[in-house]
């Protein structure tokens, strides 16, 4: 009746067959960002890194936010139809339900934010999280943190402190930021631009709970003018961007910000 290309290869397509179940897993939680022990009550997201690719479905039942008494808090994280995995399936982005974070929405009015300043919480990842082989985690993972007052300040590059390296060296260029910045923003939203206008190749390191940024160039610094270009979509832990808050009054004045830091290496 309907002529559509028939799939002859379905057997091959599902050759992987049913998931293999394991008694004991080997995959672990490798890292959780942000790493600070104190996090603002309006924080937007956690990132959970696993040591191996994970199964894509139904991770949320394995992840809980616990209060100081160990009680599970409900309705904290956004349940999306598709969980937010990196392409290599090793990083899960866990979004706090933005309806509760944002002021004025029904969810916020009714429940308030999940986090309350001054309280202690634990992010709990149980072994029920399955890796791509269908195996449980090797061990559960918990991160303890304290909630602090809401962060309602934009990152301000003009308040960052820049430590210039010396000409002819491969010393790192260091920025002390004016507060913790999202680690992915620090990896992808800041670039050192060389005198030729192209990004300088090198390596980025972070320190002090994502408040310090170090850039070590692959080649030696030359006696020239460099820039640090800042993508306007750089965000802090609460989703505030330079000049724009996550929750922005519509009559707020436009705040100018420095999209570029210009600097020169110190003479050797």
């Amino acid at each position: 009746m309907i002529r559509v290309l028939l799939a002859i290869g379905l057997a091959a397509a599902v050759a992987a067959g049913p998931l293999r179940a394991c008694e004991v897993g080997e995959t672990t939680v490798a890292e959780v960002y942000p790493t600070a022990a104190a996090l603002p009550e309006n924080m937007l997201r956690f990132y959970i890194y696993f040591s191996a690719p994970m199964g894509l479905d139904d991770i949320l039942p394995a992840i809980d936010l616990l209060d100081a008494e160990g009680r599970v808090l409900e309705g904290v994280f956004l349940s999306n139809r598709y969980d937010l995995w990196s392409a290599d399936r090793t990083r899960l982005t866990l979004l706090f339900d933005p309806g509760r974070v944002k002021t004025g929405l029904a969810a916020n009015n009714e429940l308030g934010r999940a986090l309350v300043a001054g309280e202690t919480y634990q992010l709990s990842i149980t072994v029920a999280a399955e890796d791509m082989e269908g195996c449980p985690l090797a061990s559960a993972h918990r991160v303890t943190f304290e909630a602090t007052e809401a962060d309602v300040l934009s990152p301000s590059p003009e308040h960052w402190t820049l430590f210039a390296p010396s000409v002819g060296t491969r010393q790192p260029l260091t920025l002390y930021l004016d507060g913790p910045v999202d680690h992915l923003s620090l990896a992808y939203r800041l670039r050192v631009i060389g005198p030729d206008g192209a990004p300088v190749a090198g390596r980025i390191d972070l320190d002090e709970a994502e408040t310090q940024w170090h850039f070590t160039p692959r080649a030696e610094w030359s006696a020239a003018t460099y820039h640090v270009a800042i993508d306007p979509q750089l965000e802090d832990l609460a989703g505030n961007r330079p000049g724009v808050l996550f929750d922005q009054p519509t009559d707020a004045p436009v705040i100018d910000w420095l999209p570029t830091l210009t600097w020169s290496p110190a003479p050797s």
Partner: protein
Amino acid sequence: MTTPRLLAYLTGFTAIVSAQAAFADAPMSATVLEFADPTTLFVADSAGAAIHAYTLLEGEAATESAAYTLEGFSRALAETLAVAEADITFNDLAVHPTTQAAYVSLTAGTTPVVVMVTQDGTITPLDLASLPSTSTELSTAADDGVTFWRDIPAATLTVTDLDYADGTLFVSGLSTGEFASTLHQIPFPFGGDAQTSSVEIYHAVHDQMETRAPIRAMEILDLDGVQTLVAAYTCTPLVTLPTSGLTDGAHITGNTIAELGYGNTPLEVLSFDVFDQEGNASPFVLVINRELQANLIPLEAVAAAANAPGLSEPVGLGMAAGVETIQTPMSGVFQAADQDAQFLLTLKRNLDTGAMDLVSFRKGVYLRLSDFISEYDFPDYVYADNQMGQGTRGFHNLMKAEEGFPELIE
């Protein structure tokens, strides 16, 4: 100040890189589905950060309108795919514009699958690796020689919805990195310049705020001659905005025309015509929800609200606000699509059996008679011998026939 050249190295949220391929590899995932025309099916590949356009052979147009009555569809599907029913995760549903065949995207274990299903229950998996296709990637920054202290995968876009209108594919999504509410417009055929805009919404609070929020479901509609994006957001505001404002790099604020209720995830926004006996069409918008009932809104009410100031007062506890909606008893519906002049097609979770059913709802009725046991169903019930009684009998007979119970016709 920054030169355009400097900023050109920073890609914003997501650069769209178009790639042409005669035969693509099988996708890493098959999530949102959308037909551009009878021979072009878009399949969003959220895990692979790409959208594929598959070319299908043109089928024979359906000559009659027939309801889907495939109860226990997920069981038949599991058998066809030789997987356990519990290993199937359903993603989306689309109806072929002329053949009326259902296309369902899903994950079987870890394998992405798209199947074609006809009213007689025939399930035909598509061989995605062999179908001719073109693709467009939803990728982030290109490799620029910068490495990180640990292996940090770039952010990609997880597609939440697709809609195709007049040569443009609208793509909404959530970043797997930083939170972003960008909306992409990609010309089709792929290869042209994509446009990316940042959509913010006002929300109802004393001193209005605007916030980035992820679009969960959307539909491009013609509202009084103005092409308009109608989008349902995660915490259920319903927002309109003219697509003419969605230029590259633009930052636009949508008009919040309703808050449909807290504690709910919108699953689908669709638009369709309902025809009366004279063949006159009345257009409607339907918002399918995960937790709440489906909201049916006459298109003219959406248009009127879109042209009026949006919500500006706080919304009270448990309240809905804004444009009035008609509550329809479509709970359990997971995905829906406009099937034809008479029917909406749905993937519906059967609360009795736990199976996913593939069943049609008659437009204008929005319920399935066979989901209910009522007085009419008792053997000794006699329809009154008057216009109303006989009208009800005729209507019930129609519903029984199309829901697959011709033996119950009285």
